């Protein structure tokens, strides 16, 4: 899979070869490749000078790392307290049904990854769902589905279609 941002060599060059930069390395790999492959984890641990097991332990401890490829678009449903009170959980369940994927998983066509997030700190907008970098305020599963369909359409129409804030 081609990186969206920096390639592996650039990522490694950026940081001194010290254990304290392990998380920085994994974060950059995650954001460029959408997940941490076994090969890249090996490279990161070699560069930081820690055993592979330690890189694995870090990558599985923190929620933002994925070990499997993620979909083209990431849908993050906020489950902070305010969103919970305003039906965030219902949105997750409804999206699971509509996208036919469980939270944390990726659709079979690799279009969408559905994740939940503890709190994006935008409680005034509850319930909030973040699609890629786009915040959807006071949303419902229905509104989101429309938006996701549009994204799908845009992908086929012009080869891209991410709407950034």
């Amino acid at each position, binding site marked *: 899979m081609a990186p969206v941002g920096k390639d592996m060599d650039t990522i490694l060059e950026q940081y001194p070869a*010290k*254990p*304290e*930069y*392990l*998380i*920085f390395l*994994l*974060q950059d790999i995650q954001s460029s490749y959408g997940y941490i492959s076994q090969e890249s984890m090996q490279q990161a641990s070699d560069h*930081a000078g*820690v055993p592979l097991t*330690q890189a694995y*332990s*870090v990558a599985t*401890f*923190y*929620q*933002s*790392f994925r070990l499997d490829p993620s979909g083209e678009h990431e849908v993050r449903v906020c*489950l*902070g*307290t*305010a*969103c*919970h*009170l305003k*039906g965030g959980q*219902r949105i997750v*369940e*409804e999206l699971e*049904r*509509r996208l036919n994927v469980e939270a944390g998983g990726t659709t079979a066509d690799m279009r969408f990854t559905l994740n939940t*997030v*503890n*709190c*994006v*700190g*935008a*409680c*005034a*907008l*509850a319930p*909030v769902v973040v699609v890629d*970098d786009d*915040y*959807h*305020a006071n949303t*419902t*599963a*229905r509104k989101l589905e429309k938006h996701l369909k549009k994204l799908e359409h845009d992908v086929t129409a012009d080869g891209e279609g991410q709407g950034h*804030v």
Partner: protein
Amino acid sequence: MYSLNSALRVDTPRLDSAEALNAYRENLIAGQDPNQTLVVVCHGTGCMANGSNRVTAAFQNAIEGADIKAKVMPGIKTTGCQGFCSRGPLVLIRPQGLFYQRVKEKDVEEIIQRTLIEGQPVERLLYKDPQTGKRIHTEQEIPFYKLQERVVLHNIGKIDPTDITDAIAAGAYRALAKALSGMTLEQVVSEVEQSGLRGRGGAGFPTGRKWRSAMAAIEKKGRPVYVVVNGDEGDPGAFMDRTIMEGDPHSVLEGLILGAYALGAEQGYLYVRAEYPLAIQHLEIAMAQARELGLLGENILNSGFSFDARINRGAGAFVCGESTALFTSIEGKPGNPRPKYTRSVEEGLWGRPTILNNVETWANVPLIIDKGGDWYAGLGVPHSTGTKVFSLVGKVNNVGLVEVPMGVPVSHIVEAIGGGVPGGAPFKAVQTGGPSGGCIPYHLKETPVDFDSLTKAGSMMGSGAMIVMDDSDCVVDVARYFLRFLEEESCGKCLPCRLGLTRMREMLDAFSKGVGTERDIEDLISLSQAIQDGALCALGSSAPNPVLTTINYFRDEYRAHFSDHKCPAGVCKDLITFSIDPDACTGCRSCARQCPNNCISGEKKQPHVIDANQCIRCGICKETCKFDAVRVS
């Protein structure tokens, strides 16, 4: 996006003394025209989500086209800034101070014509007082703002956080200049002690005492020492730290530099949640600009004192808000807490003496140094001095950030400032302190909001999230929500937290299904006490608080679940049924079309019926219905 290279908008040489900084500030102030028309657009995450960047762009285009003498200030502030997140996008017109809310792109032309050119307000965009129905012109007259006392947030909403000159003109780094040019390390620590400032991250430990202990540790162990900002604001429902980092990053940075000066630290760290991209970006810009001016880095203001800092992005772990877990995370490891036989001030990051303070705590430090500890101690109440920023969310009319002196009653925040619950009913309870806190029921609404009174009521200050609940919120569900949250976030190192929370959650799951006995409540309380005593860190030991306070104040509601098989609030799925009120139903078929299980039937224009056996209680029909015909019982 901003580019770091072109971040500084004026060519400025390094400032080589405190006097040079003060002269620079005066110069900047002299260059400002107080009568210049300014359009200030809120650019916080909340307003941005509602399209404030498009509003800014529309202003820029239109103003360039019309050749009006106004400068659009983009990049200013977060949701927290002007506070009224639920009213965004917000636009302020200075110098008149006109406050426009819910501004859309299409409104821009009218604002330019009517306000900027003709000098008249656009009535329909002004805030309408829900009590009197009258339109209010300026920010200061709106009750939501009028009743607040903005001390830490004083610059937010006024300055452009991506422009250091704007911050300096507003007074940033004045305290640093004061400390570097005439205060000893001892004097800086004394001022902080004098102020009575207590940590804003949750526990409320006196900041001055923490610094004093670190000084003692340094005498024993020598340097290096570290200063760290805890910006891992993980409490769901809290966003005051995000707002401060986004809206006034220099206040945090200056506080950190002052702390470093007091302890002789050369390196600092800002640990910020990855979920806050805008906060990280604004801090990076602030640090780059401060370095260019010689306010950060080698030989700050030519005083011989050198200090630099870097940002560590969190990777998504709530436990990293805990001090020892945060340190191990900075060291590049999984964020596991360690037992605190030795305190962090003696053995923190890299095993060295370390001061870790929360974002809001650091942001208070420059104010204390600038205006004096005595001034600060005069705010608030004796054992909880100063002000505190709260994020007021949930079932409340005015959602947003509220800063008030410590010691005001809960009702002042929720009812007077927050405007109460939508619809006018009294609130049911206010959850404070996030997952580690507890709830304050309506009958205790006059409880003063300070560290000790909240603890006495069974809750805690926490980081300052205030979640307002009304009668449609179930306390069992909320307690279960917090437990599930902490169960997932538990690092798993100690048994009381790892297994105890799971067991507690299972008991609450059973309640929410209508299964349980009075004895289970007693067991829940006893298990809670065991976890409080036995857990390794504060994540575990404070986890039972939401359960204990809700049992304490709402025991009958717990009982109703298992004795009557009823969820009085209509939330717990296994105990509720959905039905359609035939008198209210118009037969529009909306709900039937949306029902994921196709269990709503009926002829067009005739009342519809839900098949209770097929219903999965997803609530979509209720959400869809425009006529409020779906009933929950």
